């Protein structure tokens, strides 16, 4: 099945997520953590997935590998990886994808490593899962080489260390070594630096960057830190309350972010050198994911809605529209509808779906 929203430069996406819906069926009601998410990642590209806590970034990434546990369930959508819909696979066979073709690193490196196994063994395990015939000694050597590659000093002896004997930064390096062991086509990095201190953050990001260049592994970088996005990403997808609200190149995001939420995020970054009495914030809070509004999910917090006096926002959901080549946004400011004329339109909007 050919990808519909293939990238403009003809480079077909390695991953394309379409209308993904992951709901959690809790006692209080259905939590629509991911509710119709669309995005794609090209070969060798770094896609930033931005949004505040609880907007569904992590659930989206776990859904790609189908690592959603009960009471969560992927209820709809498609996840095309190299042309194959992963959601059509039997769940059992996902083990052939995980760790081999798509791998993942997490927010808390120290708790993501198993405390009772040596870090070397945990890397060796990746080799042995996907190649049962591989000799233990060979795998161990490869693990040591990987530790060396990710910048662990004295890798021979560190391979024998247990996770509690490592610092957070070292643990994340081990996680990266594990994730890169089989040179996957896609790496999902879920807030890889959030738990680390700032100096270490930069080193870890550099490492991911290097590996991305070296092996041409595509990366989905999940973060709430626009600074990290500016430094790392080629393209950005902005998420809000379980939906993508804007998808654009990283330059486009900072120069010409169209969605009022994106603009709010950018405005809330403190600027070095400028004196501010108060930091900018987006007033209000994310809507309850159990009881979502019918219209735009950002409507209740949106300054532009008030400014332009729009009434449609609270009644109908806007679509994710391509407003310029490679720039998609979900907002009534840029979309026409019956009885509604978009107040702002950069170029001619064409309906994406």
């Amino acid at each position, binding site marked *: 099945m050919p990808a519909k929203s293939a990238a403009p430069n003809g480079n077909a996406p390695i991953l394309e997520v379409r209308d993904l819906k992951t709901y959690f069926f809790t006692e209080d009601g259905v939590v629509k953590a991911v509710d119709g998410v669309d995005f794609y990642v090209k070969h060798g590209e770094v896609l930033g997935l931005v949004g505040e806590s609880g907007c569904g970034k992590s659930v989206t990434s*776990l859904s790609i*590998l189908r*690592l959603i546990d009960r009471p969560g369930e992927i209820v709809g959508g498609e996840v095309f990886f190299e042309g194959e819909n992963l959601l059509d696979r039997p769940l*059992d066979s*996902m*083990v*052939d*994808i*995980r*760790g*081999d073709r798509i*791998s*993942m690193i*997490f927010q*808390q490196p120290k*708790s*993501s*490593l*198993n*405390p*009772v*196994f040596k870090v070397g063994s945990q890397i060796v*395990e*990746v080799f042995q*899962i*996907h190649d049962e015939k591989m000799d233990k000694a060979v795998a161990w050597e490869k693990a040591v080489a990987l530790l060396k590659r990710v910048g662990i000093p004295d890798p021979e002896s560190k391979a024998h260390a*247990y996770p*509690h004997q490592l610092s957070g930064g070292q643990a994340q390096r081990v*996680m990266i070594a*594990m994730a890169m062991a089989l040179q996957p086509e896609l790496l999902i990095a879920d807030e890889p630096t959030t738990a680390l201190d700032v100096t270490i953050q930069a080193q870890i990001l550099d490492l991911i960057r290097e590996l991305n260049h070296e092996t041409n592994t595509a990366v989905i970088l999940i973060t709430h830190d626009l600074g990290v996005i500016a430094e790392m990403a080629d393209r950005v997808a902005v998420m809000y309350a379980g939906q993508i609200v804007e998808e654009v190149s990283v330059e486009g995001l900072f120069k010409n972010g169209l969605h009022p939420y994106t603009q709010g995020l950018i405005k809330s970054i403190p600027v070095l050198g400028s004196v501010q009495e108060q930091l900018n914030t987006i007033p209000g809070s994310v809507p309850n994911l159990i009881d979502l509004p019918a219209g735009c999910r950002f409507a209740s917090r949106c300054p532009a809605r008030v400014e332009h006096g729009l009434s449609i926002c609270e009644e109908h959901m806007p679509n994710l529209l391509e407003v310029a080549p490679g720039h998609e946004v979900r907002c009534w400011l840029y979309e026409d509808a019956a009885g509604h004329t978009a107040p702002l339109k950069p170029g001619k909007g064409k309906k994406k779906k």
Partner: protein
Amino acid sequence: MTQYILRRLLLSIPVLFGILIATFAIARLIPGDPCTAALGERATQAACDAYNLRMGLDEPIYVQLGIYMRDVLTGNLGDSIRFSRPVFTIIIEKLPVTLELGLAALTLAILVGVPAGILSAVRRNSKVDVATMVAANIGVSMPVYWLGLMLAYLFAVLLRDTPFWLPPSGRLTAGLSSIPFYRAWGLPISDGTFGFPIFEFLSNLYILNSIITLNFKVLFDTIKHLILPAVALSTIPMSIIARITRSSMLEVLGQDYIRTARAKGLRERLVVLRHGLRNALLPIITIVGLQVGTLFAGAVLTESIFSLSGVGRSLFDAITGRDYPVIQGFTVVIAVGYVIVNLAADISYAFADPRIKLD
């Protein structure tokens, strides 16, 4: 590691002293008089005085305690008041029975309890989970003596003349006897030979003895006799182990490293058994260690119901007969066993979890 073990052993000494004093005191606090228990209700004062003098019971309590301590430390557990035999000999005779029963029950409890707990945790809130936990709750609340009687009634009476019949009492069918391995092998060992108590002790472990002498008839008969008491004795520890395993596994399965293991492409079975169980082991080890106490307590009732002449039964008889030296001797043995098992549990933590450093 060695240092840790030594330190733990040294720390056990005050514990054991405490146990000696406590058992000494408890035995003497039981209402009743050893003289009337031994010589009967109609014993004359003179006969009783002579008896007390002979048994050292005329001395003040603290002198009795001092003598007792001295004797225990020199390995002399005294003589049974009722049987006029050394307590040590009685222990050599009875302990293997209880050891065999306890080990069988503990093995059963672990082999059933741990997998049941894992299954429950993996399929949490499913029918399997609910059924297992209901069964565990019933198991933990069922009195051992009642369960023992019901099992005996079911398997020995109702199922008589079926292949499922199981003997309700004793260690061996009448007519069979377990020939001690040293006699079977013609070793020149008899009462008085150096180390005889050890040989005697080992040969009284019928399962071990029948395996090394290749006497399978006795082996199967012993196992057949062991099934009902072992099942009765194992239900409470089994239920507790299942519940602890379930909760421990549930906690572990929610950890980040389990998600990592899945993200690596590991199959779910290995995620649970390799990454999950290994981390869930600590509380299980602790509870298994503590269950040894429950087992000894349960052995008193189980052995009485199934007419097994082990430590529990003898202790029960000794208590009703005010046989102080036997009560004290057996209690010390049980306490030492308990201390050793829990020391072993503590040491095994270090093997289960590298984060625990022993020294």
